[in-house]
């Protein structure tokens, strides 16, 4: 680990009998955009809360910005920004008042605070809306204000918990541009999401499911590790083809867009497999070409593979 800003070892959190986060070890390098992916209830928010020092772990250790998450949470809090899952703005305060409040809470005062707020209003394009009450903003604008509030003290590390949930595609895109700008200036970003296009824009990814870390790496590494093969086929009878292919054990995923079927499988050439299976099923293939495996294919594959043997594993543990 050269320059890790987050390091965890066997981090764990239980709520009664429920294990929300189980034995997670990973690290995040300074300046990275680190994505955490996982279905709802996977433990993403719980993990972030522990890293922010606002939730005690039930086991394991963690260091964030050089401080122990259990022993020095206050030292961590001064140096991180956190955008909670539902944008925590004061809806009865204006955009500017929200910013000024958070600036004050982070210890800025007087001229410094004023300057910083002006600077942020400009750089995030919020200036025209400065007097609008936060409660009357649309989702995209709220998200923009919430992000700005989270970086009001210019922290070296920010946590964004599902920042784009329920936000329109245009806002999502500009939000990600902003994240890349921050990253380019040296800010480390840990972001949770379940949008795959967003996952592809992260430098590195962690995939967690049911509290367990299933894989970590760059998007390319994660895809490459799976040994995935993808074929895009045009067929006569899409439904019949899908049924036949889905039933085959080597097939990970079949999706169809009109007449075009997309097929992903592990360790076998997808085009050859399709030719065999569909001939047997009596479906004619009009055209066939190889496709590029995506992060989404990788995650579907991981989740699927995890589900069957995992059930047995978890029962034993």
């Amino acid at each position, binding site marked *: 680990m050269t320059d890790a800003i987050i390091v965890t070892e066997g981090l764990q959190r239980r*709520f009664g009998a429920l294990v929300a986060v189980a034995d997670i070890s990973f690290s995040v390098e300074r300046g990275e955009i680190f994505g955490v992916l996982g279905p709802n209830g996977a433990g993403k928010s719980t993990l972030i809360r522990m890293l922010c020092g606002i939730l005690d772990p039930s086991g394991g250790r963690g260091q964030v910005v050089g401080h122990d998450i259990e022993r020095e*949470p206050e030292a961590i809090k001064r140096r991180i920004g956190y955008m909670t899952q539902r944008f*925590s703005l004061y809806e009865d305060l204006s955009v500017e008042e929200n910013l000024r409040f958070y600036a*004050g*809470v982070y*210890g800025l*005062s007087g001229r410094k605070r004023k300057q910083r707020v002006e600077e942020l209003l400009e750089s995030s394009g919020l200036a025209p809306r400065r007097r609008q009450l936060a409660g009357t903003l649309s989702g995209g604008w709220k998200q923009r204000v919430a992000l700005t509030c989270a970086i009001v003290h210019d922290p070296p590390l920010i946590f964004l918990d599902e920042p784009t949930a329920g936000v329109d595609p245009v806002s999502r895109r500009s939000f990600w541009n902003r994240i890349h700008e921050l990253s380019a200036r040296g800010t480390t970003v840990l972001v949770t999401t379940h949008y795959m296009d967003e996952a592809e824009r992260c430098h590195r990814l962690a995939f967690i499911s049911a509290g367990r870390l299933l894989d970590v790496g760059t998007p390319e590494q994660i895809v490459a590790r799976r040994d995935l093969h993808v074929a895009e086929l045009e067929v006569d009878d899409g439904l019949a083809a899908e049924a036949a292919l889905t039933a085959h054990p080597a097939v990970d995923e079949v999706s169809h867009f009109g007449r075009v079927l997309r097929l992903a499988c592990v360790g076998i050439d997808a085009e050859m497999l399709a030719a065999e299976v569909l001939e047997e099923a009596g479906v004619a293939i009009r055209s066939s070409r190889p496709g590029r495996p995506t992060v989404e294919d990788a995650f579907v594959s991981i989740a699927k593979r995890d589900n069957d043997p995992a059930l047995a594993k978890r029962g034993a543990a």
Partner: protein
Amino acid sequence: MSLSRLLAIAVKELLQLRRDRLTLGMMVVLPMMQLLLFGYAIDTDVRHMQTAVFDQDRSAASRDLVQRMVATGFYDVVGHVHGYAQTRRALRSGEASVALVIPANYEAHLRAGEPNQVQLVVDGSDPQTVSSALNTASGLVASLSGEQTRVALARCGVQGPAAIELVPSTWYNPELRTSVFIVPGLVGVILTMTMVMLTSMAIARERERGTLEQLVVSPVKPVELVLGKIAPFVVLGVVQMSLILGLGHAIFYVPMRGNLGSLYLMALLFISANLALGLFFSTIAKTQQQAMQMSFFFLLPNILLSGFMFPFAAMPRPAQILGEALPLTHFLRIVRGIALKGATMADLGREVVSLAAILAVLVMLASLRFSKKLA
């Protein structure tokens, strides 16, 4: 502790309060309604008790007795009854709360100097009536028999002993008007109610709206949060207090005999204590509704045990101990002392110390309870 963080929170609360017209309106209307309600409706003096007369003598002497009783102002004769059955009916139906029973040979016995008995039947379901009725009647009868003795002695040529007269001299509230006593106390009760309620919801609201998580993850210290949230409401409390005192003076002629400045100074302690208590509730309550219920629940012992409704001295010991722990108990002594008796800060030193101690404990409790952790 950072002043700028404290200030940031106080300013935020003020801004939110300014936009919350409903709460602001309530803070003004509520005290006025309570003032009128308590000031006009509550009168613990029992005057003009409805009296039924069962006069079996129908003599000059018996009529004289009835007249004297009416003259005290405590008895209004609502009718004459004949027989105990009617007396009972009058009391049971509530037509009368007192009945005077004069025996058949009242005047004859009086003349003959024989022992005489007049009966006063009182509706005991309202204890306040009982004591009022018995007190005035026995006073009246005692002076009447004293008079009779002297008349009898004089007839025998003996100068009887001079009657001893008790001259009551009531200081501070000579007309014994309830409102003069109630209104200053009302300042305390209303402040307790509104201040505790306002802040009890303060943290619960942040929890409900999800902003608490954002606060908890910031470097803000619990004590900064507690003091920052209290500060703006202190101003509101002072405004409320002025409103009640001013209206009380204008409508009910409640005097202000002591120094107004020292009253306000001591009121600051009291207001802050209530706010800190509300905040403490707020750290326990999960939702705003729970917080609201807690503050209502808290109001009851305040009204019962503080000496607002019932005299503190007459309460049983355990109730008094509980009462001493309530900020209102001390503030009542302060506000009544200053407004009605012209007491000074030095006279009230004990109450000030008690209030300050309660405030310190509450701020500490609220700060300790406000954990910067979730779950």
